């Protein structure tokens, strides 16, 4: 119970302090403008919750989830991955790029 209330508080104050600039890209489930009443689901680290220990450069389907359309690595603030796993993920993505499993940049 106490957890819920502490989680709600930053979520409610977040959009107000962040302003319109930061509010737009972070539009997850509740990305409505001026949506300070909306309850934004707290993002959790996929690797922690699903207990994925090894992030291998060979696991293209896993890595693809954390790469944007143009081939960029998606930042932590959008995906909710924890610092430790983001670091390992970054390394794996860069290795995968090196062996042509993932693109460095996608041409349009």
């Amino acid at each position, binding site marked *: 119970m106490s957890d819920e209330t502490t989680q709600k508080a930053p979520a409610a104050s977040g959009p107000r302090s962040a302003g319109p600039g930061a509010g737009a890209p972070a539009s997850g489930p509740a990305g409505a403008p001026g949506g300070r009443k909306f309850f934004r689901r707290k993002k959790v680290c996929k690797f922690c919750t699903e207990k994925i*220990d*090894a992030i291998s*450069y*060979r696991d293209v389907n896993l890595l693809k989830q954390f790469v944007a359309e143009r081939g960029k690595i998606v930042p932590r603030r959008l995906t909710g991955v924890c610092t430790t796993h983001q670091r390992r993920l970054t390394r794996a993505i860069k*290795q995968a790029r*090196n*062996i*042509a499993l993932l693109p460095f940049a996608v041409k349009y």
Partner: protein
Amino acid sequence: MQRFYEVMFIVRPGVQDEDLDKLIASFEATVTNGGGAVRSTEKLGRRKLAYLVRKFSEGNYVLLTIDADGALVSELERRLRVTEQVIKFITVRMDEEQKRLDKIKAIRATRRKVSSEPAAAAPLAEAPEAPAEHAQASA
């Protein structure tokens, strides 16, 4: 010092199957002759490359898992570089990662034992609690 590496390389798409096997066998030979050991060899098959490599858009992926030391790895890399059919390769050291994974596994195993113990002990703990609640209700 023996370490555990993964060597992945891409062979040109036009290479025949027999030639590919020969190529892999030759790399395995360099590893075993150099004092290392091949743990496993895996042909991952033809895959589309994410970008053009030497004007190829496809390639045969091969994964070698080896135990080797630094000198042997540099020798293997030299050979990979020299070999015409190999268009790209990567060597990744895996032993530290493996050590970390084993550690996590060991921690998980011990934790599971701890978590299963309270589950068994829980019914015993509940029994003395129940009278205490009654006492509170009456007071």
